[in-house]
């Protein structure tokens, strides 16, 4: 059976440390645009940690939610792309073909999660930072859209390694950079079509829900809700 890659995000475990964001930038050659451009809303983070306050001071409470491409089964970004740059792969990934993208940015508007990022200028790296670029990931030129790939280069590499060694993929051995870097283990990645995988079991959890589920995009990322919160003096 074909793989169907998915993820579980345990909000109870997320500390908001943003190690996932840093790891993603390093793995996927995501350009940093500088403070001025970032202030204009041009920063690119394929995964971000959304920070929300609940309640009023002094009872305010800080919560985090890592948001990355939800790899929707019924993805709104794919239908609207005039050139098929955005499309669904056989393994359920929302792929973005950079060479096919003409930069209408319609996909980014149609995506209710705002997890698509546009190269407003040619990416630049200060020397000698260009030496740390990942050779497995192509660079994107000005005018094209980019987004989380679930580290498709790692998926490809793990599959060909397993094929060479004539074995099945081992659950947990293959991880995208964000999940690998998460110190709290809040991000769990795996094959949803393998009923024994950790991600498949966790996504059945009663704590599980999808982000903006009401839009019907059928995301493949499940969020596990925080459990009981006790006020310090109530304990």
């Amino acid at each position, binding site marked *: 059976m074909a793989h169907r890659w998915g993820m579980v995000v345990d909000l109870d475990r997320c500390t908001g440390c943003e190690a996932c964001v840093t790891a993603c930038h390093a793995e996927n050659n995501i350009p940093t645009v500088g403070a001025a451009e970032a202030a204009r809303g041009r920063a690119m983070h394929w995964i971000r940690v959304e920070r929300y306050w609940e309640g009023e001071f002094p009872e305010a409470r800080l919560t985090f939610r890592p948001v990355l491409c939800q790899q929707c089964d019924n993805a*709104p970004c794919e239908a609207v792309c*005039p050139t098929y740059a955005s499309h669904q792969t056989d393994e359920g990934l929302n792929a973005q073909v950079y060479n096919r*993208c*003409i930069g209408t*940015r319609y996909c980014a508007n149609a995506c*209710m999660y705002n997890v698509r990022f546009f190269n*407003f200028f040619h990416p630049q790296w200060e020397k000698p930072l260009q030496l740390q670029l990942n050779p497995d990931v192509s660079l994107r030129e000005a005018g094209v859209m980019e987004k989380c790939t679930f580290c498709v280069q790692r998926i490809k590499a793990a599959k060909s390694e397993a094929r060479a060694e004539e074995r099945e993929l081992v659950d947990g051995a293959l991880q995208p950079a964000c999940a690998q870097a998460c110190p709290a283990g809040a991000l769990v990645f795996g094959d949803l079509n393998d009923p024994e995988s950790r991600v498949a079991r966790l996504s059945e959890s009663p704590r599980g829900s999808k982000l903006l589920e009401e839009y019907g995009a059928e995301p493949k990322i499940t969020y596990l809700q925080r459990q009981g919160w006790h006020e310090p003096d109530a304990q």
Partner: protein
Amino acid sequence: MNRTRNNPLADDLVRPLFHTSVWFYGAVLVLATVVLAGAAAWGYQLWYGIGVAGINWPVFWGFYLTNFVFWIGISHAGTLISAILRLVNARWRRPVTRCAEVITVFALMIGAMFPIIHLGRPWLAFWLAPYPSAREIWPNFRSPLVWDFFAINTYLTGSLMFLLLPMIPDFALVRDRSTGWRRRIYGALALGWQGTTKQWHRLESGMQIMAIAIIPVAVSVHTIVSFDFSMATVPMWHSTIFGPYFVAGAIFSGIAALIVAMAALRKLLHLEAYLHPVHFENLGKLLLLMSLLWAYFVFAERLTVWYGNEHSEMAVFWATQRGEYAPLYWAMVVCNFVIPFPILALRQLRTIAGTVVASFAVLIGMWLERFLIIVPSLAHKPLPYTWGDYAPQPVEIIIMVATFAAMILLYMLFSKFVPIISIWEMKVGNQPHPPVVTEAEDELAGLWRARP
């Protein structure tokens, strides 16, 4: 020949083609400079990347798409109005139709440039066209942008034919009055027009077919433009009302553009004898109707959103109603309703000056409406963490101003090369009581046959 020469009507209307004042050259020079500045701004954007515009994450569409929708809306002035007036055989339409149809063609050409200007990689825009290639990839027919591509091209082709068909007899008339290179050019454009009964008959049936065919095309174009927005589940975009709402808004701004253009032509080309106050009065009534219709649509849209009280939609609703976009929103309401309604509703104010004032207000208001549909929604998508804002950058403003200059420039040049009022249609209209049109045709045919 003598009859042609002694025809005061034709003399009057052909005059701008043969006599040009120094002011005209001055105006052309100024406008051409502005258009060139716009071209330079686009070149600058091509060189450095679309990042020189103000668009950002999450407001990926800004001024360019606002202008796209605005100009496509303006294009509904001409062909649609002229086709309807032709079909209902409104006699007062005769001096109005051509200057209306020209607006359509030029506004479409300008509007259709914006989706290309706004692309990240505009040199690849041709990928929207289905053509056989080694890649074996066709455009994605599920994408509203591909629907746009076909709708706009169909409308542009149809409008061009609708404009050019009734120009043929007038080209022949100019041909017969000119000498030298002019005669050769207009002779070619006249396509061998001799004014025979058969030719008149074919022209009439051609016009009839085009007038009927162009109406559904025009309605579909702005409906499909609205689909660019309403097909996406973005707050306050995803609405079933958008199709008719956009079409009504397009006709609204289109009539306003037509009134402004007619007033300018009347003044500058001294066409007082042809464009009467009654034309402005009638178009003013149409504008009044569209203003009421627009207000009704806005009320219906806003009330249902407010009553539904859905979280993400309310964020956009309040941002426009009393938040950061409220000044623009209320300016839009004033321009589209508060100013034009009393002017157009009171007969004493529905003069040429009055309708022009109302039309200017409507043009500003409808531009704001397009902006307010696009930007506040993108700035307030469902996850509050991703809210943003938008400020236009100089390059976007220069390109926008340049397109307005381009519109005026194209219109001025057109009125220099083609009689802006359809001469033969005026003549047909001048027949005291034409029981059947063919009688008038026969007389006209004789008129053309008499040429040397």
